[in-house]
């Protein structure tokens, strides 16, 4: 392994590493625009120029591979001057319209200008004019004048989404990023180009002008959109509810996890959060009377539900549950206990297969649109669609007195006739979920569950990776996490579930369910752990954040 010296620090790095990677290992951040660890190296922006002894010219740190005995000066006068000049060049035709640019605050032109900008501009000529505010696709807006032609987005479309919509047209300082004629940037991963754009050239059409980025809070989370469980950050705007049309969640951003999604997420996941602040959210327990839903207090609702279920059990009638793989491991574990210990139900189906086969690919998007089917299976739920089918058949035969449905809209998985004929025969339908939908409307009691963004918990993805997500915002109005609802309902039956936080449920589950043995919220860390199939859960190294600026 070669030993090199960077700014006086001697270190041994792996063969084949580039200077920029080696410097990062030594804790020295070299500025970059075109370099992105997830994309091909092109050496175009030249901002990472460094001085290497015995080489006549400055070299780009992103492309130059380390060699034994190499002595690199990142902060020599010559290297610093070159970077300053490259930044000066990048701003020659840049409009410098930060006050009206949505990227302001997370722009690497601003970032580096603060660090090593010229502060005394010499440019007095007229700037080149290019296309502005071009909607290049359903999610992405392009401002060509702000573009620094780093070609990250072009390479993303060539190498990651493999759709090749974008190219650089024309020559010299007339060069311009645009979609190829007749093409739009419309692929399932299109909005990733916004994340990797280091400047304000590509902005999100959904997010732009909604809220300034410095008002946002960031929470680590996991995408609930499918069984992949891409790591994400939830960006919330809590302090200024009048911005962003009252939406608390401003946007989702991918979070680096080489074991799952690298640097990327799909557009379905990225824009799949809108239900959280949607008008259809259930905010208070509801009781249906004569076709009308009336709001009741939690205690009243739980008291009434207890009464119905208790009577049914005492009369020897059947109470059944339909769980959901949308629920976290914690919720499902509480449900399992509630079923087993309180209602003595042991077969709980969770899966409703959608009538139409959902879109999937061989990259990140999986056919199973539930984040926790694997977790449900590990906890002993029946994840076969046939089990749900049988449950509905039992209902249709009049064998079910009360049915508790979690989250599912049955109309998405069964013909409307089949759903109605089944639920009509059920005396009491209790629905637990976050948003109003056709199945919920058939229920007698509706209990408001909060969304994944409003609670702590874990999902187990298709590959058995248990990943932690944190609450980004408070539960809306009177909604509660399902495990809390179940704890309260169990209490009505005289059962005490001694859980105060989601972590308590997880701790209990890790103790009792072998697959999760040895896991804890702390051990899961930022990248999660793979379920315990042969004794010990596997753990991964600490996360290295991409694009973290080490300020001097």
């Amino acid at each position, binding site marked *: 392994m070669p030993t090199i010296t960077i700014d006086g620090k001697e270190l041994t790095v792996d063969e084949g590493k580039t200077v920029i990677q080696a410097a990062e290992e030594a804790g020295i951040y070299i500025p970059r625009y075109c370099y992105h660890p997830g994309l091909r*190296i*092109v*050496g*175009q*922006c*030249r*901002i990472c*120029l460094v001085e290497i002894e015995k080489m*006549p*010219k*400055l070299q780009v740190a992103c*492309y130059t591979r380390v060699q034994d005995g190499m002595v690199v000066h990142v902060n020599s006068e010559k290297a610093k001057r*070159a970077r300053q*000049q*490259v930044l*000066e*060049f*990048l701003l*020659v*035709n840049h409009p410098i319209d930060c006050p009206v640019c949505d990227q302001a605050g997370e722009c690497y032109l601003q970032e580096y200008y603060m660090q090593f900008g010229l502060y005394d501009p*010499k*440019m007095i*000529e*007229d700037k*080149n004019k290019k296309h502005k505010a071009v909607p290049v696709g359903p999610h992405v807006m392009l401002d060509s004048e702000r573009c*620094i*032609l780093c070609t990250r987005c072009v390479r993303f479309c060539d190498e990651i989404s493999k759709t090749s919509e974008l*190219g*650089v047209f*024309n*020559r*010299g*300082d*007339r*060069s311009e990023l645009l979609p190829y004629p007749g093409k739009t940037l419309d692929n399932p991963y299109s909005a990733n180009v916004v994340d990797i754009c280091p400047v304000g050239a590509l902005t999100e059409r959904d997010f732009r002008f909604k809220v300034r980025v410095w008002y946002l809070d960031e929470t680590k989370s996991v995408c609930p959109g499918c069984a992949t469980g891409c790591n994400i950050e939830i960006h919330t705007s809590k302090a200024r509810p009048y911005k962003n049309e009252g939406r608390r969640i401003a946007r989702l951003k991918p979070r680096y996890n080489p074991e799952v999604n690298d640097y990327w997420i799909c557009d379905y996941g990225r824009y799949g959060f809108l239900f959280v602040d949607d008008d259809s959210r259930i905010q208070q327990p509801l009781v249906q009377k004569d076709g009308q839903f009336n709001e009741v207090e939690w205690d009243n609702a739980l008291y009434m539900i207890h009464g119905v279920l208790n009577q049914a059990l005492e009369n020897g009638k059947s109470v059944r549950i339909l769980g959901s793989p949308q629920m976290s491991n914690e919720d499902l574990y509480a449900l399992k206990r509630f079923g087993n210990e309180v209602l003595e139900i042991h077969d709980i189906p969770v899966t409703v297969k959608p009538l139409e086969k959902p879109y999937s690919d061989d990259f990140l998007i999986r056919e199973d649109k539930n984040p926790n089917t694997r977790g449900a299976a590990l906890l002993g739920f029946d994840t076969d669609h046939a089990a749900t089918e049988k449950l509905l058949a039992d209902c249709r035969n009049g064998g079910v007195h009360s049915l508790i449905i979690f989250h599912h809209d049955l109309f998405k998985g069964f013909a409307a006739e089949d759903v109605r004929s089944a639920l009509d025969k059920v005396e009491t339908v209790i629905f637990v979920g976050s948003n109003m939908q056709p199945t919920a409307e058939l229920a007698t009691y509706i209990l408001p569950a909060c969304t994944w963004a409003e609670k702590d918990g874990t999902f187990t993805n298709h590959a058995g990776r248990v990943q932690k997500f944190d609450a980004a915002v408070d539960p809306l109005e009177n909604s509660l996490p399902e495990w809390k609802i179940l704890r309260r309902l169990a209490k009505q039956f005289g059962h005490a579930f001694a859980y105060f936080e989601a972590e308590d449920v997880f701790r209990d589950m890790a103790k009792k369910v072998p697959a999760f043995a040895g896991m804890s919220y702390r051990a899961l860390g930022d990248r999660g752990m793979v379920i315990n199939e042969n004794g010990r859960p596997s753990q991964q190294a600490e996360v290295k954040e991409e694009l973290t600026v080490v300020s001097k």
Partner: protein
Amino acid sequence: MAETQGILMPLIQSECQILKNYRDRGGYEAAKKALSMTPDEVIQEVQASNLRGLGGAGFPTGRKWAFVPKNSPKPVYLVVNCDESEPGTFKDKYIITKATHALIEGIIIASYAIGAHTAYIYIRGEYVRQAEVLEQAIQEAYDNGILGKKVLGKDYALDVYVHRGAGAYICGEETALLESLEGKKGWPRMKPPFPAIEGLFRCPTIVNNVETLSYVPFIIKNGARWFAEMGTERSGGMRLYCVSGHVNKPGVYELPVTTTLREIIYEHAGGVPGNKKIKAVVPGGSSSPPLRPEELDVPAEFDALMKLGTMAGSGGIIVMDEDTCLLEILTVTTHFYHHESCGQCTPCREGTGWMDKILHRMLHGEGRIEDVDHLEEIANGIMGNTICPLGDAAAMPVLGYLKRFREEFESHALYKKCFDGEFAELKAAS
């Protein structure tokens, strides 16, 4: 007509785009000789001749050939750079149209030496008629068993293709040329890997200039020593000089590389019209820094010119008499590089345009004295910091003119007119 001296000149003057004429002058004998040698022997011969890349970089040709990995599992390609687009350069087009078969013979020998069975000639889009002549000559060579499955009856196959460019200066840069040849946008590649290791279609590739290859048959025929002795210690033979600008007889002259610029201008190109004084001479294409009249007693050769901080480049000598406005010259030159910058990497893309704007402003009488320093700073920011040499090509003239003729630009900035004696007094007084 008296027999012209030189190597390629006599061919050019005797219509060697026609096979019979070339054969009459001993054509394709060298290729036969080369095919009976081993490839290594051919490379050694070329190496010993001190033949250097005459496209402008001056890299020793034989040494370049030796970089091709032996027994590569991938095919090896020869690419002929005929994108001659450096302003002030117009030699290759004479070879293509008039000494075509010498080029084809050079291609055969070079391909054999590096183990290539396919050669591509990348010709600039503007050379329409030249490309037609080239195609005809290649067809003639195929028809006469010179190219194809059995080259000159020997057990060696070679196919030659002509690919026409679309009119970009950048595609004369060898890696941009390869990208263009592959059907992509002409953006230069990062090096390493160098083309000899990973070039066209990611296979080992040698890119040589037309003139370079055209000398190869004569080196094989007459021996390396014959060629080397015409030149200096490190650079052999003759080369074609393209003389343009303020001379009485502009044109292409084939002379030994030891000839001085003054000899070329005054003895061969007939001196300056009206016996005016020379103000500046660009020795090797528009990207080479200019020389002052007192510096002209230098051989127009790679190493000697490099010592003066300029370069022999493509052999394009541009002579400017005393009445030339150098601001105008530099503005036109910089505008060219601005127009032709590919836009891939930042310093060249933004720097060339910026310099162009400053120079145009100065030319329109709105210059400021600090602009002269700014130009120098911008050029220094481009120099050596780009992916390919186009950045350097744009920066060198700016730095060169400012180094040797700074007063011309200061005069324009301060007094909105070209430098004259008056200015010196004014400047001394200020």
